[in-house]
């Protein structure tokens, strides 16, 4: 046990000298970028484009003289069926105050009993974040008064969290300059969520819904390793991917299943000590994280440059999405006193090595592993990041190439026409009727010359909307590519005969008209003529008598 305490003490030097594992030259190049949203999250609602024109000049200055230090606390709501300490079910959007019981309402005498899934999910995430697991950990009571907390304390983990000292790997999107990053994870601990507090516009009261009270959370605390808004947003996006790949949470930011609080400070480059940190809350999307941090950095640097660095105080600020700025929520008066003590109603949490190994062996392929594998297959980083972003898309891609499809072609189809269709129809990859089997078949049919690429595209849309098989559609619609030179020649002859005027012009030097002829022949063949053969025969015929 002594060991775990010393671990706590030893981690201190890391906090004091975090410096960087990474070069900091990348600093603030992102200010030239258009949208923070494109690659980060296909699931999140589209955000308005990043407005940086006014900030870009200021940010240029920052990159020269100042450095930002960013750490993030993330709360992930676990996708268990029941709450952490009672058997009440939790479903987002249920009628308020319907899934409650004496335990989650904090009635006297009610005793908590831990959901075994919570430990399982914590171990999964701890392992996925490369953490050291505490074989013995415990729950503690964190006392504070707030109407959404019926017991007057939150059951959490304080000095012996279930996992500590890990890291997370990620690839920055290519459009932000790319690059691989590794950010430290300080700790992961289990705790329960509070209820939901609603502030109605009118009236002198607030409303409480306790359905969410007692829902299990994992809090993930990062090392202060991030330097830019983009890095922070990408860290959050990678965490979202990770919890989704692991199946421990839906990671949905809109529903509050993934919540990020960021700590931002700036310091002159070269200075070892951190500047005064400011906490920013109310970040409901990755682009909000990125923009709130960039705003906060320029606000703090501006104060530094104007000789008013004493105006930077330790406080909690809120991101105002409408005004695109952070505003003071509350100033901190010393450290809050939560009077932690061990939760007397719960036994300690003991992990066996066998249990841990069992979970380790059952971990799925994680986003970072997937990206490295795709990279080794020869895909570009842009393809890699796109395909590994969504586990369902990645599974679809993997299943397609498992059916023998060409890797690059499969990637192109998925990222091109299929992604566009999903976006237009607001469907996920699991909702379209196209199967990986048929996509592989389609790719093979085009590659083998059975159908043209153009026809392939038409079939694809039919497959996505209605389903069916490539073979079935080809026979049904008589779409087999015409590769018989005699048949193509007949069509070429017909088109030339029907367009004497254009033929004259062509032979008079307007050779661009070849395209016109090719189009007419293709039309006549209903798109089925093999384009290579068509052009070859057409050219021969057009140039024949000149």
């Amino acid at each position, binding site marked *: 046990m002594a060991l775990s305490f010393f671990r706590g003490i030893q981690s201190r030097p890391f906090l004091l000298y975090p410096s960087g594992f990474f070069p900091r030259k990348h600093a603030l190049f992102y200010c030239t970028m258009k949208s923070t949203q494109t690659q980060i999250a296909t699931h999140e609602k589209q955000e308005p484009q990043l407005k940086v024109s006014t900030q870009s000049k200021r940010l240029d200055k920052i990159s020269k003289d100042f450095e930002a230090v960013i750490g993030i*606390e993330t709360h992930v709501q676990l996708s268990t069926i029941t709450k952490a300490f009672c*058997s009440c079910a939790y479903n987002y959007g249920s009628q308020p105050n319907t899934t409650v019981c004496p335990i989650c309402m904090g*009635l006297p005498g009610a005793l908590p009993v831990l959901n075994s899934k919570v430990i399982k999910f914590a171990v999964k995430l701890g392992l996925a974040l490369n953490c050291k697991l505490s074989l013995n950990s415990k729950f503690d009571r964190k006392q504070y008064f707030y109407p959404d907390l019926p017991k007057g304390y939150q059951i959490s983990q304080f000095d*012996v969290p279930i996992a500590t000292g890990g890291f997370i790997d990620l690839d920055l999107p290519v459009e932000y300059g790319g690059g691989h990053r590794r950010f430290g994870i300080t700790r992961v601990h289990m705790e329960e969520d509070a209820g939901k507090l609603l502030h109605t516009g009118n009236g002198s009261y607030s409303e409480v819904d306790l359905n969410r009270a007692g829902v299990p959370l994992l809090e993930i605390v*990062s090392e*202060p390793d991030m330097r830019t808004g983009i890095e922070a947003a990408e860290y959050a996006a990678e965490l979202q991917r990770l919890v989704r790949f692991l199946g421990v949470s839906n990671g949905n930011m809109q529903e509050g299943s993934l919540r990020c609080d960021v700590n931002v400070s700036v310091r002159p480059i070269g200075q070892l000590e951190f500047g005064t940190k400011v906490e920013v809350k109310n970040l409901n999307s990755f682009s909000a994280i990125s923009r709130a941090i960039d705003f906060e950095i320029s606000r703090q640097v501006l104060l530094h440059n104007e000789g008013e660095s004493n105006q930077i105080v330790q406080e909690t600020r809120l991101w105002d999405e409408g005004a695109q700025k952070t505003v003071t929520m509350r100033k901190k008066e010393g450290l809050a006193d939560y009077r932690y003590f061990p939760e007397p109603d719960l036994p300690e949490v003991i992990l066996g090595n066998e249990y841990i190994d069992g979970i380790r062996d059952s971990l799925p392929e994680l986003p970072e592993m997937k990206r490295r594998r795709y990279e080794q297959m020869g895909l570009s980083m842009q393809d890699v990041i796109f395909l590994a972003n969504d586990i369902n898309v990645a599974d679809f891609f993997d299943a397609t190439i498992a059916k023998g499809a060409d890797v690059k072609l499969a990637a192109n189809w998925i990222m091109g026409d299929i992604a566009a269709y999903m976006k237009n129809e607001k469907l996920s990859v699991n909702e379209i009727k196209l199967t990986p089997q048929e996509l592989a078949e389609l790719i093979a049919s085009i590659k083998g010359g059975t159908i043209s690429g153009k026809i392939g595209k038409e079939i694809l849309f039919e497959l996505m909307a209605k389903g069916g098989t490539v073979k079935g559609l080809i026979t049904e619609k008589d779409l087999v590519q015409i590769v018989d030179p005699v048949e193509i020649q007949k069509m070429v002859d017909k088109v030339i005969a029907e367009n004497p005027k254009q033929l004259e012009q062509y032979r008079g030097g307007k050779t661009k008209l070849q395209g016109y002829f090719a189009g007419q022949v293709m039309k006549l063949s209903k798109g089925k003529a093999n384009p290579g053969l068509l052009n070859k025969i057409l050219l021969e015929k057009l140039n024949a008598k000149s």
Partner: protein
Amino acid sequence: MGCCELLLLHTTIKMGSRALLLLRPTTSTKDLHFKSRFLSEALIVEKRRVRSYSVRSTIHPPDLPRLAETARISLTPDEVEEFAPKIQQVVDWFGQLQAVDLQSIQPAIRADTKGENLRDDVPETFENRDAMIAAVPSYEEPFIKVPKVLNKE
């Protein structure tokens, strides 16, 4: 005052001498860039804990007004005068534990180390919800009504 005492007792029973450390004001910390409030508190507690092996005798007297404030109870000056010695007594009582030599003892994270008590993730509906809701002092379907709050603390 019951709440404070209860808390103190819980703490002391479960944690022995550490509870006394928690009684000290925690505001003297330097403003370092910690990642989380409680993490920094954790480190502070650990540090003190270790230190307490050698510096055994300093127990600060409880600050009654502060204790009352953290428990959200108002005390009249008379009550403060009445309770202060009583709380002091409890603190002194547990202070005797400081005399125990812990040099060679590994800290226990829990008093009871026996067995886990876990539950399967299977939902069950609590049948007497109506009675619970009926007991809520201020309820307006479907919400519990509370005085307007916008900021924590």
